C-alpha cells in the first residue's frame, strides 16, 4: 500500500505550494438530466486559473448542478446522466477509468451548510490526509496547523484542538470545513453558497479568505448574494433555466450586462 514515490510528491508540494501548477478548467457541450428532467441544456465554459468565478442565477437554474460536475459529486444522485466533456489540465474527468478519489483531492469542495465531521477539530482537518494513507504524524500535524492558519482559525482554536468540531460557532465551523479542504492541497476549490447559513461578520471573514486563497487556487463559488458576487469574484456567470445566459468579467456583468435578462436579474427585477 505504502508508495514512497507518491509520498515524496506530496511532500514536495507542501514545501513549496507554488510548484503546483494550477490547471485550467474547460467545460464543453455539457448537458445534464435528472431522470427525464433536463437540468443543464448545453453549456460551454472555460475558467481561468487563479481566479474567482461566481455562478449566479435564480433557484433551480442549474448552477449548483453545474458546480458539482467539476468534482463528480453528482455521480451519487439517483437518475443523474450527462453528456459533454469537462477537461481539467487537458484531460476529461468523465472519461472511463478516471480515478474519482484522485480527482477530488485535486478539486475540493465547501458546502452550503457547515458540515464538520463529529470528530475533534484536529481530526477534521487531518481526515483527508489520513484517508490517503499518510501516517507521518509530524507531517500531518504541520499540515493541520498550516491549514488552520490559512483560514485564520488557528489563534482561535490552538488550545482546544481536541474539542469537537461541532462545538464551534457556525462561522468557525465553515472556516474549519475550508481548512479541511485546504489540507488536502487541491488546486481548485468549489464553494456551494458557503456563506448562506452564516451571519454577516462570519460572511465577511469567509469573503476575505476567498480573496486571499485566489493566489494559490482557482475558486468557483455559487452564490445567491449579488453583492457578494460583485465583491469577491473576477468573473461572473449568469445561469437561467439550465442555460448559461452571460459569462464575463464581473465588472462588465454588473455595470454593463449584454443581455436584458442578466440586467433584470442583477437589478432584482426577478429571481
Amino acid at each position, binding site marked *: 500500500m505504502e508508495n514512497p514515490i507518491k509520498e515524496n510528491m506530496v511532500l514536495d508540494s507542501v514545501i513549496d505550494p507554488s510548484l503546483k501548477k494550477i490547471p485550467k478548467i474547460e467545460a464543453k457541450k455539457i448537458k445534464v438530466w435528472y431522470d427525464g428532467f433536463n437540468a443543464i441544456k448545453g453549456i460551454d465554459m472555460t475558467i481561468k486559473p487563479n481566479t474567482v468565478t461566481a455562478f449566479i442565477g435564480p433557484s433551480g437554474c442549474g448552477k449548483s448542478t453545474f458546480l458539482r460536475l467539476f468534482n463528480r459529486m453528482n455521480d451519487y444522485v439517483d437518475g443523474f446522466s450527462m453528456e459533454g466533456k469537462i477537461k481539467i489540465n487537458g484531460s476529461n474527468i468523465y472519461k472511463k477509468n478516471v480515478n474519482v478519489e484522485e480527482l477530488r483531492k485535486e478539486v475540493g469542495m465547501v458546502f452550503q451548510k457547515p458540515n464538520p465531521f463529529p470528530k475533534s477539530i484536529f481530526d477534521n482537518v487531518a*481526515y483527508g490526509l489520513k484517508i490517503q494513507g499518510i501516517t507521518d504524524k509530524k507531517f500531518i500535524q504541520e499540515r493541520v496547523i498550516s491549514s488552520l492558519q490559512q483560514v485564520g482559525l488557528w489563534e482561535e482554536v490552538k488550545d482546544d484542538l481536541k474539542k469537537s468540531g461541532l462545538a464551534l460557532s457556525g462561522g468557525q465551523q465553515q472556516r474549519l470545513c475550508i481548512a479541511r479542504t485546504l489540507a488536502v492541497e487541491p488546486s481548485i476549490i468549489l464553494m456551494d453558497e458557503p456563506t448562506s447559513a452564516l451571519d454577516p461578520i462570519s460572511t465577511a471573514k469567509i469573503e476575505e479568505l476567498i480573496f486571499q486563497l485566489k493566489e494559490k487556487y482557482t475558486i468557483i463559488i455559487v452564490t445567491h448574494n449579488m453583492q457578494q458576487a460583485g465583491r469577491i469574484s473576477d468573473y461572473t456567470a449568469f445561469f437561467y433555466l439550465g442555460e448559461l445566459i452571460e459569462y464575463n468579467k464581473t465588472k462588465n456583468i454588473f455595470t454593463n450586462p449584454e443581455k436584458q435578462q442578466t440586467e433584470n436579474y442583477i437589478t432584482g427585477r426577478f429571481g
Partner: protein
Amino acid sequence: MNNIQKNRWKDQAFKYWGVFCTIIGLVLLTVFIGDILIDGIVRIDWGFITDLPSRKPENSGIYTALMGSIWILILTTIIAFPIGVAAGIYLEEYAKTNKLAGLLEINISNLAGVPSIIYGLLGLEVFVRIMNLGASVLAGALTLSLLILPIVIVATREAIKAVPKSIKDASYALGASKWQTIWHQILPASGGGILTGVILALSRAVGETAPLIVVGALAYVPFAPSSPMDEFSVMPIQIFNWISRPQSGFIENAAAAIIILLGITFIMNGIAVYFRNKWQKKWK
C-alpha cells in the same frame, strides 16, 4: 361550543385516553411480574443456577438450560451480526435504487413478520437434515440467526439512513472512497443504532421457543453443551417443560426460571439503551 373549545376538549380527552392506555400496560406488566416474583423468588439461589435438572423439583436447577441459552446467544451473535450488518450496509450504500431493490426491501420487511415456527421448519430441513447437523446447538443458532437476520438488516439500514447526507458528502469531497466513508464516518455515526438493533434482536432470540423445539432442542439434557455439535436445551423450553409437570414444586421452578430469563432480557435491553445514549452524546 365553538371551535377553540372543541379542540381543547379533544386535546384533553386524548390526553386522558393516553394516560389510561399507558396505565393499563404498566398495571398488567406489574401484576405479571409481581405474580411471578411471589411464586418464584424463594426458589432462586446459587444452587438453582448451578444445579442440573432432576426428577425432584427441589433438586432441579437451570444450569443446562442457561448454558444452552448462552451458547445459542453467542453463536447466533457470531453468525447473525456480521451477515446482517454487512447486508444492511450493502443495501443502503451499494445497491442501486431500482425496482429489484424495492422488491428486496419489501421482502426483507415481510420476513421479519414471518411466524417463528416457519423458521423452525426451514432450520429442521436445511440445517438438521440436509446439512446433517442434527439437533445441535449449531443448528439451533443457525435457525435463530435466520429468524433475526431481517430484524438486524432493517435496524442497520435505519441507523445508516439516519446519518446526515452532509457528512457523507464531506467525506467523498475530500477524496475518500466508498469504503473509507463507510468505515470512518457512517459506521461510527450509526454504530449506536446498529448495536441497539442487534441487541434487541438477540433478546428476542433468547426468548424464542417454537423454532428450537422444531429443530429438536430437548426438554431434558443431562449435561451442558461443551461444543457447537452437542445437544442442548434452552431456558424457554425448560420453563415450558416444568410448567407441564403435575408437581407444584416444578411450577415454582418455572416461575424462578422466568425471573432469570426476564432478568437476562432486561439486562440486554439495558445495555442497548446504554449504548444508544452513549453514542448519541458523542455524535450529536
